[in-house]
Structure formats: C-alpha cells, structure tokens
C-alpha cells in the first residue's frame, strides 16, 4: 500500500477561518500537561506528534482547521457555507449573559462562524464531502447553523455522488437555540436517509467528545463508524449515569474502546493512521467492480 508522508498540522486554507486560527489554538506553549497521565510534554514535540501524548497516547482535541489539514490532500479543501451565522432565533438570555454576546466572543476566539466547517476536498486524490466539528465553539454544539451546514454537506455528497466524511466533536445539541437545535437531529438524519438511498458512502469519525444529540443522530448513522482512541462517546455522560443508577461505573464506560466492544463502531484509528485508514476505505468504494446497480 502506498504510504503517504506523515500528515502535519499545518493551517488548512479555509475561507471561513482566520489564517492564524491554529497559531492561536497553539499559543507558544513551551510545554503542555497531559490531562490523562500528567506528563509534561514539550510543546514542539507534542505538535509534531499530532497533539497525541507521547507517553500515554492521549489524543488531545483538534480544531476543525487542524483536522482538515490532517485529513485532506494539501490545498484540496474548498469550503462552502462558511458565511452562515446564527442570529439567535430565541433571543436567549441567561444570568451569565446573552447568547448573542456569546456568539460574538466565540467567533473571536475561534475565527469560525459556528461549530462546524464543511467543504469538498480530497484524500489521496479521492474527492469527498467533509464536515468537521470544532469543540472550541460552544462545545461543538449543534444549533441551526451546524444543522444547516451539515445538511448542505450531506446534500452535496448525494448530488455529486461523492463519499461523505463527518468528524464529530460535540457535547450535543445547543441549548441556547432550544427545540430548534433538537430538530437539527431530525434534519441531518433525514438528509442522511436520502444519501443512503442514493447509495453513497458515509463514514462517521467520532472524536472526543461525541455525545447526546450528536451520538443519537448523524454520528451513529455512518455506514462505517470509526473513533479516535479514548474519545468520550455515548448518549449520557458517565456522571449522569452514575447519579441515575446510584452506582460507580467501570472506568472505560462511554469510551471509544467501550463502544467498539459493544459492537457500535467498526474500529479505532490512531490519529497517525486515520488519514490512511480513510483512504483505504474510500479507495475500496471508488472504482473496482461492483454489481450492476438497478
């Protein structure tokens, strides 16, 4: 098999992102502490290792631009719908402040207009539709904009008969858009029903975290579902389950390893291998002989 050169975390060319998004996400930290094993990691080495702890293998979260750079062929990404913004449909105000203000500060913090980046690109020359969520933007939560952009990506994949890859990193539906957010679960799933009917491949890559309204909709509807090691994946958070059941849970509950063991996903891919893994699968589905379709 052709071995691609080691992907690097360089800035993806996204219309919707600040050119310095990644630089900001990676302040000139000389060192980072691994939240899992407490090891102090040299910032440079850590970045070179794709933000995976050299000692314990803990996968730190990536921003959407970082993820896109990791997965796609260089300069192959062309983003769309980057200019969609939430206009705060409920006029949501909490004690801690308004959602409208929160949106402004999240935009400034991340350089993104909302919590997902979508576009067309290629992996080892195979064209695909790609959607990547960004946890930094209100926990990657799905409101009207995320739902709409995902739906556009799914519809684009169906129209062009290009495989779809969605990378999830989200705590669930966005509470500040209320039931509208809940309905995005139905909207994205309906679009996926059409994609499935069209016989176009959908690969769902679950990264830390993929929970609640995200896991209970598009994330678990992949024809193939992969996950990054150690990612939190599940409907409810372990603390909620403990409170509900009044019992301590085993340590691995709702991890990538847990859902693999229970038959919910197809595999776990180390960040170093995820691009090559996707490429293998996409190649199997592009070209090669299949049965003549109806």
């Amino acid at each position, binding site marked *: 098999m052709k071995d691609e050169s080691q992907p690097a975390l360089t800035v993806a060319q996204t219309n919707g992102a600040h050119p310095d998004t990644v630089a900001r996400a990676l302040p000139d930290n000389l060192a980072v502490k691994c939240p899992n094993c407490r090891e102090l990691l040299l910032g440079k080495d850590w970045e070179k290792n794709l933000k995976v702890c050299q000692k314990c293998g803990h996968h730190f979260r990536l921003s959407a631009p970082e993820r896109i750079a990791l997965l796609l062929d260089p300069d192959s990404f062309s983003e769309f719908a980057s200019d969609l913004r939430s206009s705060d*449909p409920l006029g949501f105000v909490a004690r801690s402040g308004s959602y409208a203000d929160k949106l402004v500060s999240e935009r400034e913090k991340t350089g993104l207009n909302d919590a997902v980046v979508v576009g067309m690109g290629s992996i080892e020359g195979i064209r695909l539709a790609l959607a990547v969520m960004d946890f930094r933007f209100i926990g990657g939560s799905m409101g009207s904009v995320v739902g709409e952009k995902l739906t556009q990506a799914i519809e684009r994949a169906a129209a062009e008969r290009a495989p779809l890859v969605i990378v999830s990193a989200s705590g669930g539906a*966005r509470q500040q*858009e*209320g039931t509208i957010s*809940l309905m995005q679960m139905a*909207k994205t799933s309906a679009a996926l029903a059409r994609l499935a009917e069209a016989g176009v491949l959908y690969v769902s890559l679950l990264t830390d975290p993929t929970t609640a309204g995200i896991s*209970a*909709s598009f994330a*678990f509807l992949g024809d193939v579902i992969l996950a990054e090691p150690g990612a939190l994946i599940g*409907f409810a958070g372990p603390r909620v389950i403990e409170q509900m059941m009044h019992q301590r849970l085993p340590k691995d509950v709702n991890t990538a390893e847990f859902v693999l063991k229970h038959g919910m996903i197809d595999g776990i891919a180390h960040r170093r291998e995820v691009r090559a893994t996707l490429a293998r699968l996409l190649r199997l589905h592009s070209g090669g002989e299949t049965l003549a379709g109806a």
Partner: protein
Amino acid sequence: MAYDLDFERPLADIEKRISQLQKRGERMRPDERAQVAELQQELARRTKELYAALTPWQRVQVARFRDRPYTNDYIKRMCDEYFELRGDRRFADDRAIQGGVASIGGQTVVLMGHQKGRDLKEREECNFGMAHPEGYRKALRLFRYAERFHLPVITLIDTTGAYPGLGDEERGISQAIAENLLVMAGLRTPIICIVIGEGGSGGALGIGVGDKVLMLENAVYTVAAPEAAASIIWRDNAFAPDAAQAMKITAPELLELGVVDSIIPEPVGGAHRDYQAAAESVKAAILRELADLKRLSTDALLDHRYQRFRVIGLQGITEVVGAAQK
C-alpha cells in the same frame, strides 16, 4: 379532582369553601346554596383565567402532573379496537413505549406512545416513561409494520427523556434513536406525532419525526429538561423557571418557530380535568390531519416531510457575505 398544583392554590381555596358549604347537605340555607353556585362560577372563571396565562414553568408542571392522561388513557378513549404488539424481537419488551395496531374512527392505524405509568407498580414497570433501546427498537418494528400494511403511524410523545443507564449505553441507545430518526424520515406512510405531555429531548424525538407534529395546549417540548439546562447554563438548577422561559418550550412558541404544525386544545384547567374531552380533542386532530395527508401521493408526502424539517432553523440564520468574521 383536587387542585393539586402549586400555582392552583387560589383555586384550591375556593374549592375548599365550596365543599365546606356542601358538607351541610340538606341543611344548607337558600343563601348558602346561592353562595355555592356563585363560588362554582368563580372557580370556573378563575380556572380559565389562570390557565390562559400559564408561565412556561407552570406548563412544565401541568405537562408532568401525575394525573395527566397518559398514552394508554388516550388509547382507551380514542380507539374502537386496539391490539397491542409487544417486544423488539431482539432483547426485551420495553413498557416505556407501548403500541399496536388500532382502529380510530374507522381508520386502521399503528399507534404507539410513551407510557409513564399511573401507580408506583406501573411506574416501575414502565421505568417512568424513560425508554431503553428496546423501546425505540420496538417502535422501529412498528414503523416497518405500518409501512408494510400501508397504515398511518400515530405517535404520542410523553417522556422526560431516554433512560441514561449503563445497560442502555451497552445496547446502543444512541444508535437506536438515530436509526429511528433516519427511518421515520423515509417511511413510506403518513406519520403524525403528538406531544401529549413532556417532549423530552432525544427520547421524545426518537418517535417524533413525522409529516405533522402537533402539541397539546399545555405540553412542552425541550432540547433538555429546564433543570438540566439551568444547571449547565445558569450553573444552578434553581433557575429552571428561567431556563423554561428562555428556551421557548411551549406550544404557542414552538408553533411560531415552525417546530410544530398546530396546537390541540385541552379542556379548561388542563387535560387532567377531563380525560374524555382531552381524548376527543386528540382524536379529532388525528382524523383531521389524516384526511389531509391521505390526499398526498407517497412521493409528495416524503418530499413534504423532508422539507418540513429541512427549513427548521433557517429563520435563525443570517448570511454574512464575505465571511467577515474577523
């Protein structure tokens, strides 16, 4: 039925005065009889006024009220015939979602809904209406059944949410709900979903994708329970009433936002005051919507269903040309 909800205290006081007078029975003086009639009128008037102006948090309490009619109360009163179908054919029969094939006003339908349970025994059996994966997989089985026999699907939604347990995660509660969303979106038969009480998040939506989504007047439909939202966003679940207000969870608000298509009126003082009237109201709505949907070809029906969800949220999006987010 007593006025038991907190905010019904003024009504309970009037009721108490009425019953004190009535205790005298035959010994009641004519002026006391007149007073009873007056008080009864006042009670009716004030119930109507109070219920016309419920706050979102008060509606949450009505929607969750232990005397509120549940799925089986509606089935009993709406259906001429009901044949229960049980089990998901994979693991278990989840009593939190019950359903079967039924006849409503001469129309054969597949009907299902969350069942919270009335007494403690039934509540435990139904897990308080919080379904496991098996509940959603039984629903899935019934969707397929309906499609096979060209029967419309009616779902009655009334749940705090899907059950957040360890076994549920092991058996794929996320997958079970997600699959229902996908299958309901493409099911080749009409689907009418009615939120009769609590529409709690993904556990509600798991049987909530349809051509028409209706809500009872005092039902609520939430992305997360107000207590949960309050503890996340306000960092204190005592702010649940504020969260209920901010999240726009009531039928009139969701009608405005395009999440629901119409509101089913309840008897004065809430559905729990008159099960029969509530059931007749729901039945009338079902038959009215079915008559509409039956006019559409299956392809038109599916296009309409797709578009119905496709546009939800678009009104909350602005396009900033040039992506000038800097």
